[in-house]
């Protein structure tokens, strides 16, 4: 069987390479899409409309009423999904969680928070999209719990970060106190009128805007002293609007909020790439792989229509070799295409491919195998070229969009994230991201889970294709 499969494989690949249109579609289209999506996703600065949610792991080391109030406020923010770290977690363990990719953001409420100690945020710095969503959520929660006090605190922090001496703060307090008193009275009135009961977040948002406008109204000498990188009005505006493109939220949040931030970068990750770029490259690679390999698998239908399949099936060979050769050819082509796309992405986006080549090879092999099983099943199920085209295009586009190939799943509603797990691209993209983003090796547990699912899909889909092939073409 191997000899016959090898002969047919060589023949198929030769025919594929000679079909210039198919070759162009298989090679050029993925490159164009990777370029476009990579560039677009790299420049996404925000865009929160309230629907997306970011997972935030929280750990309350303070255990005070203030910390409980903050946690409640965070839980009330639509854009955040809180996960409580186990009691007794150490800071090191929490840091490891970010390092290993188990968590992207960890907020530690330190002992002494109620007395004014700053919050601590451990974060994966590359997830700029999640970071901006988190910024909005944190601002809302903090304003909700601290009211106008936060605005004054932010103001002092911004001025301090801009170099204004502490001794000058009294001067600031001097001319802002009347306004502060008016603001506090307004908040008290609003609370008494019940306006804050079911709309704390919105009120807090308004407060942020008020605070921002107030900061903007500062005398020229102080406002100008705040510097370019930490303008409170910009921060509040970004929070209220849902994002501006060129804001360094890390600087901004550190300057504005009672928060210290530590970036936890997994080993081996190129700090220059962003989550969106690696995601776009992974997503487009998987989607285009499905399209390209479908083109290859359609060769089975072309062989059937041309009569060559009949000729193969009456040759003195194991008929299973026909399908096996298609599997080998498609899988091999898939490996070559993914390698080509990653090399291209490495050149274009500085994606570090070389240092993780072994993991990428294993993931690509599993991806190619599972995608091959999928396209073979479509090819044997379809009764015509048109059927194959229609069915494959529909399934590939739906699976790609739901499975997170187009946009990160963080931008999807929770129900879609659950559905995504039933799609083929999800596991592949997750595995690629595990390598690119979290620096996981293919022997790491999360990666083995993804590989296992992909291989199970490959076996199941290929077996199904073999059964249909047998029923349809062998002794029908």
């Amino acid at each position: 069987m191997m000899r016959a499969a090898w002969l047919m494989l060589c023949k198929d690949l030769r025919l594929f390479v000679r079909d210039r249109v198919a070759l162009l579609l298989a090679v050029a289209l993925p490159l164009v899409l990777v370029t476009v999506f990579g560039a677009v996703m790299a420049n996404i600065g925000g865009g929160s409309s309230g629907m997306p949610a970011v997972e935030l792991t929280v750990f309350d080391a303070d255990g005070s009423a203030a910390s409980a109030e903050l946690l409640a406020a965070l839980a009330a923010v639509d854009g955040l999904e809180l996960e409580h770290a186990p009691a007794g977690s150490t800071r090191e363990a929490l840091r490891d969680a970010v390092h290993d990719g188990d968590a992207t953001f960890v907020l530690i409420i330190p002992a002494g928070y109620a007395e004014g100690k700053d919050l601590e945020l451990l974060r994966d710095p590359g997830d700029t999209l999640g970071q901006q969503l988190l910024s909005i959520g944190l601002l809302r929660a903090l304003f909700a719990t601290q009211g106008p006090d936060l605005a004054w605190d932010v103001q002092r922090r911004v001025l301090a970060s801009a170099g204004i001496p502490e001794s000058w703060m009294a001067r600031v307090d001097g001319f802002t106190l009347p306004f502060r008193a008016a603001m506090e009275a307004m908040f008290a009135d609003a609370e008494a009128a019940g306006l804050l009961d079911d709309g704390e977040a919105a009120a807090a948002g308004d407060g942020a805007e008020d605070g921002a406008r107030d900061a903007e109204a500062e005398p020229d000498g102080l406002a100008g002293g705040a510097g370019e990188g930490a303008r409170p009005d910009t921060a509040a505006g970004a929070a209220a609007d849902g994002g501006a493109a060129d804001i360094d939220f890390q600087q901004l949040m550190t300057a504005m909020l009672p928060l210290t931030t530590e970036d936890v970068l997994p080993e081996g990750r190129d700090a220059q790439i962003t989550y969106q770029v690696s995601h776009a490259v992974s997503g487009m690679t998987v989607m285009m792989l499905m399209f390209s390999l479908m083109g290859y698998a359609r060769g089975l239908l072309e062989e059937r229509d041309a009569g060559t399949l009949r000729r193969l099936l009456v040759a003195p060979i194991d008929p299973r070799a026909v399908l096996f050769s298609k599997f080998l050819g498609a899988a091999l082509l898939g490996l070559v295409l993914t390698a080509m796309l990653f090399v291209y992405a490495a050149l274009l986006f500085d994606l570090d491919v070389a240092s993780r080549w072994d993991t990428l090879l294993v993931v690509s092999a599993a991806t190619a195998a599972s995608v091959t099983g999928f396209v073979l099943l479509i090819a044997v199920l379809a009764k015509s070229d048109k059927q194959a085209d229609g069915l494959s295009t529909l399934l590939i586009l739906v699976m790609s969009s739901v499975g997170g190939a187009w946009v990160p799943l963080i931008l999807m509603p929770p129900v879609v994230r659950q559905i995504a797990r039933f799609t083929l691209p999800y596991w592949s993209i997750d595995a690629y991201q595990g390598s690119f983003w979290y620096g996981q090796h293919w022997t790491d547990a999360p990666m083995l889970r993804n590989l296992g699912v992909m291989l199970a899909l490959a076996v199941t889909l290929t077996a199904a294709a073999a059964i249909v092939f047998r029923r349809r073409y062998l002794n029908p």
Partner: protein
Amino acid sequence: MSAAGPGGAHGASAAEQALGSAGATRAATGALLEVRDLAYSYGERKAVDGLSFEVRRGEIFGLLGPNGAGKTTAIGCLCGLLRPAAGQLRFDGQPFEPSRHPSQRARLGVVPQELALYDGLTARENLRFFGGLYGVADLGVEVERGIELAGLVARADDRVKTFSGGMKRRLNLAAALLADPALLLLDEPMVGVDPQSRHHILESIERQADDGRAVLYTSHAMDEVQRLCDRLAIVDHGRLVGTGSASQLASQAGLAGADLEQTFLALTGHSLRDGASA
């Protein structure tokens, strides 16, 4: 073995050896392929229903029938593409189950109805590929022989998609002959060819029989069949309605001296089914 059917029993009698109006130059020897009570159904529809005949070494045996009569299904069973629901096949005296035993197909050369060639490959590459599948020894020599047989020496390295219909048909036949088969199954191999190619192919087929191969030939072209075939079987609705030489068939149909087309129409046409054969 004798073939039994509605047209009567036909052993290897002297009368049957008489070739009537069909080609009379070959002397067929013993049966190579024996088909007895072959049956195959697509669901409820019986495509082949108790078909029996034999094909002898050195003869060209024609399998005729209207569209949908079961010819292609019967060939599918003979070449292993379909597994018969009933009946027995013997090849060279041995049980023959090509659908179960792929190695048994090595003795068959199949020319399907379609131009079963790869358009993107050259003539030489096509032959090399199919020869490789059949495990042809001395493949290079056989490929060149095939190129010559197809009359494509000057175009051997051109891609098939640049060929005319006739060139493709010739190559189609050459591909089936690469492995030196004992039995050649030709399923309407002459569709869409010009007179020159047709003549070339017919001569090639006759040469195969002259060389001692058994040839099973299906076609709708009565003149081809009449020129080429030593014996014929006419099938309709999956059943054998007549077998023998063209003249014997004419006699069976009560049309002594009639040409094959008249005989065919008499045996398969509307009048027969309405009892005209009585």
